[in-house]
C-alpha cells in the first residue's frame, strides 16, 4: 500500500483524524518518559503522518516504545488522544507486515492475541512456549525466573481456558485477515 493510501486508512480509523488538530507544541514529546529513545518523538511523528510519510512512520520504533502511560494525553492542549493513536499505528504496522527494528514486540503482542483467541485469557506457560519458538534466546534468559516462580508456586503450568473460549470467536475473523510481520 502506498503512503497516500496508508494515510487515508489512518484518517479513517477511530480517532485517526484527530492528528489534524495537532498544533506542534511538543507537549506530548516533553511529557513522554521515552521520547529521547524514539526514532521520532510524538510531535515529529504527527508531522510525518500529516506529510504522508507513512512508511517511515510505520517503520519507526516510536509506537512500540509507547508505554501507554497517557502522560501526553492528559496534557495535550488540543485533547488529541495521543496514546490511542499509537495503538492504531501498531495495529497498522502489523497489518501491513511492516516491522520496526525492534521486531520482537509485534511477535509478543501476536502471541498474546492468539492465546486470548484460543482460550479466552492468557496463560503464562503457553505464552512462553509460543513466543519462545520465535525467540529462543529470550526464553532461555527467562528460564531461571520461571524456576524461581515455580518454587513459590507463582507460575501456572497447566493452561487454563475459560469454559467457552469460542465466545471470543469474533476475534478470529480479524485474525485471518492479518499477515505475519516480516
Amino acid at each position, binding site marked *: 500500500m502506498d503512503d497516500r493510501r496508508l494515510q487515508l486508512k489512518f484518517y479513517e480509523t477511530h480517532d485517526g483524524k484527530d492528528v489534524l488538530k495537532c498544533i506542534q507544541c511538543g507537549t506530548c514529546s516533553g511529557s513522554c518518559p521515552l521520547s529521547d529513545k524514539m526514532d521520532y518523538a510524538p510531535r515529529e511523528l504527527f508531522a510525518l503522518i500529516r506529510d504522508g510519510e507513512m512508511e517511515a512512520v510505520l517503520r519507526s520504533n516510536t509506537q512500540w516504545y509507547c508505554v501507554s502511560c497517557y502522560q501526553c494525553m492528559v496534557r495535550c492542549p488540543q485533547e488529541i488522544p495521543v496514546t490511542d493513536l499509537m495503538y492504531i499505528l501498531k495495529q497498522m504496522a502489523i497489518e501491513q507486515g511492516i516491522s520496526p527494528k525492534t521486531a520482537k514486540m509485534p511477535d*509478543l503482542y501476536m502471541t498474546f492475541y492468539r492465546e486470548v483467541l484460543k482460550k479466552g485469557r492468557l496463560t503464562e506457560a503457553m505464552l512462553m512456549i509460543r513466543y519462545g519458538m520465535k525467540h529462543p534466546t529470550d526464553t532461555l534468559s527467562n528460564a531461571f525466573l520461571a524456576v524461581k516462580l515455580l518454587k513459590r508456586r507463582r507460575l501456572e503450568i497447566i493452561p487454563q481456558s475459560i469454559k467457552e473460549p469460542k465466545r471470543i470467536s469474533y476475534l478470529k475473523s480479524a485474525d485471518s485477515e492479518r499477515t505475519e510481520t516480516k
Partner: protein
Amino acid sequence: MKFALFLGCKIPFYLAHYESSSRAVLKTLGVELVDIEFNCCGYPIRNLDFESFLLSAARNLALAERQNINILTPCKCCFGSLKHADYLLRENDSLKDRINSVLQEEGLRWEGRVEAKHLLSVLFHEVGLKTIKAHIKHPYDGLKIAAHYGCHALRPGKIVQFDNPLEPSIFERLVAVTGAESVDWSMRLDCCGNPLWGKNNPLSLDLMRKKLSNASQAGADFLCAACTYCQIQFDTVQEAELIQEGKREEMPSILYPQLLGLAFGLDGKALGIECNKVDISSVQEYLS
C-alpha cells in the same frame, strides 16, 4: 455492598497473594464478592485490533450487567481497559450496535448499566475512610510509604474518573488512614516500566530504577502499589534483575491490601506476606 471480582489474567498466576489479601481486607470491611467467569480485559490485544479489544472488555461488562452487579478489579490495567470500553461504547452508537450484535449470539448485551471500579476507589468512595479507620487495630508508627499510583487508573482522567489525573490524593489518604506516612516524591505518577518488560528490558529497567531511586531519596521505607503490572515490576522484576544482579539496594513493594490487612490485625499468611519476592516482613516491625 456487593461486587463481582475481576482478577484479570495475571493475578492468578503471578500474584495470588494480591487476590487473597484483597479478599481478606474486603471481607473484614463487609464487602461481598461474587465470582463470575470473566475473560481477558482486552488490554493486551489493544495493540492488534481495536474492535477485538472492545469486544473482549465489553463482554466482561455485559456478564456483570446480566447479574446486575458492579465490577471491582484490583488491577489498574484491567480497570483502565474496562473504563475505556465503557466510554467508547457510550460515545459511539454504531460501535455499540456492532459489539452488541456479537454479544447477542450468547444472549448478552451491553447497555452501560454497571460500572467497573478499582479496589482503591471502592475503599475510598464506597467503604469510606471512616469505616476503614474503625477497623484499624494496629496503626503503623513511623513507617514511610511511597504510594505509586499506576498510569491506567489515573489517566486519561476524562475516561477513568479515578481521581484528579495531575494532582491525585486518594492513595495517600488511604495510606494515611493506616497510620503510615506518605512521602512526597516527584515521580509518583510516572510509569513503572512494566509495559516494556520482555520487549525492551534495558529501557524497562531504566524506568523502574529511576522511580526506585526517587522513592528512596524521598525517604520511603516501602513502595506501595495497587496494580498487578506495577507490582510484578517492583517485586518480581526488581528482585530478579536489580537485586540478584547486585545493581541496587532493595526498595520493597507492598500491595495496598497487604498494608491495610496487617493494620487490621489480619494473619500475615492470609495476606501472603511471605509471597513477595523482595522481603516485606520487616513492615510488621512498624505496627503498634
